[in-house]
């Protein structure tokens, strides 16, 4: 696969809704340790709502589709995750406006725009123990894939699939790397040093989302 069309994005959302539902307990458990136990429920509620309303969105324009997804997340997730994931999809959609499909370069640009939006909305930087710690390395991995394609000899796949595989791995590593961090943003920050030793739920859901995207592309 060389590019993500509206149909692929829709398939991604369907898969993400399944994954959020399946991993609801895990996210809730992570959130119970350092937050308020609602992350799994909120993400599942939001993505289930998006899935049920996918039919009403414009699939011919990837930008419009992503923005539509963002609006639904914004109005259904609640908490901090609503505006953060809503902004991620809306800003990514803004960058992709008018595109019928996204190749690796377009996807990298669009996720970077989403990342910038999330950082602005949450006033967070890498290392603060938030979803940025998963999203930021994923965007870096996409950009790296763009400038340095995978060496030959590995599994045969397109640049896009290679980029998505590397992004999903980077996001997962980023989420795992939040364990020892002391939270500086979000509700976990109120715990101070007690937040160390737990994986950040937001970074985890973000990693699940990127894993779902890679899986949708057949990686």
């Amino acid at each position, binding site marked *: 696969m060389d590019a993500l069309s509206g149909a692929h994005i829709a398939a991604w959302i369907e898969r993400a809704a399944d994954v959020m539902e399946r991993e609801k307990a895990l996210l809730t458990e992570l959130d119970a340790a350092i937050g308020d136990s609602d992350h799994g429920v909120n993400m599942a509620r939001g993505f289930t709502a998006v899935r049920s309303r996918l039919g009403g969105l414009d699939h011919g324009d990837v930008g419009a589709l992503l923005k539509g997804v963002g609006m639904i997340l914004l*109005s259904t997730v*609640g*908490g901090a995750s609503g*505006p953060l994931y809503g902004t991620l999809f809306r800003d990514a959609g803004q960058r992709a406006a008018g595109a019928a499909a996204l190749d690796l370069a377009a996807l990298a640009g669009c996720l970077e725009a989403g990342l910038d939006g999330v950082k602005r909305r*949450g006033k967070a930087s890498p290392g603060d123990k938030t979803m940025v710690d998963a999203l930021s390395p994923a965007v870096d991995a996409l950009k790296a894939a763009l400038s340095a394609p995978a060496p030959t000899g590995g599994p045969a796949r397109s640049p896009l699939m290679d980029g998505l595989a590397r992004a999903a791995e980077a996001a997962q590593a980023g989420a795992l790397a939040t364990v020892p961090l002391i939270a500086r943003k979000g509700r976990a920050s*109120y715990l101070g040093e*007690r937040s160390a030793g737990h994986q950040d739920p937001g970074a985890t859901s973000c990693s699940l989302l990127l894993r779902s995207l890679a899986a949708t592309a057949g990686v």
Partner: protein
Amino acid sequence: MKKLINAPDDLVDEALEGMALAHAELLRVNAAPRFVTRAEAKGKGKVALLSGGGSGHEPLHAGFVGRGMLDAACPGAVFTSPTPDQIFEATRAVDGDAGVLHIIKNYTGDVMNFEMAAELAREAGIPVEGVLVNDDVAVEDSLYTAGRRGVGTTVLVEKICGGAAEAGRPLEEVAALGRRVNARGRSMGVALSACTVPHAGKPSFELGADEMEVGIGIHGEPGRRRAKLEPADRVAEILMQPILDDLPFEPGDDVLLFVNGMGGTPLLELYVVYRKARAIAQGRGLKVARSLVGSYITSLEMAGASATLLKLDDEMLRWWDAPVHTPALRWGT
């Protein structure tokens, strides 16, 4: 989990339905998006007060909708902030052409959702001001945190601003008053047991039979530290000491002392805490001019209490004493 619920997904909507039925003379509930407004027609030229946050803190916020206090409340899911569309629609519903004051507790989700709602409202031509409540001394203010949490002082901001708005004060003045109340209010809380978020199904933290969590917020999150449970008088000291050390209270100051139950602690025990907290305040030369004791900002069934001390001025006193008629707070005519 032992709770009187049908299904976790229906909990908030069904509670609001019940509330609308029980207080039909005071409230109207809008189902989608979800918000609560006063039953009486909106006041032309009156600043409207809107507050919101997660459900699970009852009677905050819907219980304070009514004459002399809030015009609208936006309940989110349990411990989850409301969404921007909820807040925006409620803002539009209660704007009486004098603007709307948003009262926001300093939690990341609440701040972001209210921020986005205020952007939408201003685009629609509605003047909006916000008061951010961040009164919790348990959270040290530093570069490394998202700032202090908003807890008990929220109730006092809502009542005092509500009195001023009812008297026809303009938006900037009511907002400035709210910010002053926040700047002079300090709170600290302790939990004797955790609460169970219905969707999670189990307690949000484990606490031994002889332990307490010191410096808790209102979302079932663990506190700043764990300590051995002590008698009520000692707990009152643990709550009052950091409050008194934080704000420059001076001998002779008039203060409002608010002892709040977290949901699972009976009034009987709250009065014991109040008794000692009052003695501690008076020991510092403070004059406890007004008091409030009861469960007004809660965390589901969590056992525990918080203390809030507000340094009063004449204007705050006047609006605190002004009549209020809401489901959860009522005095005057």
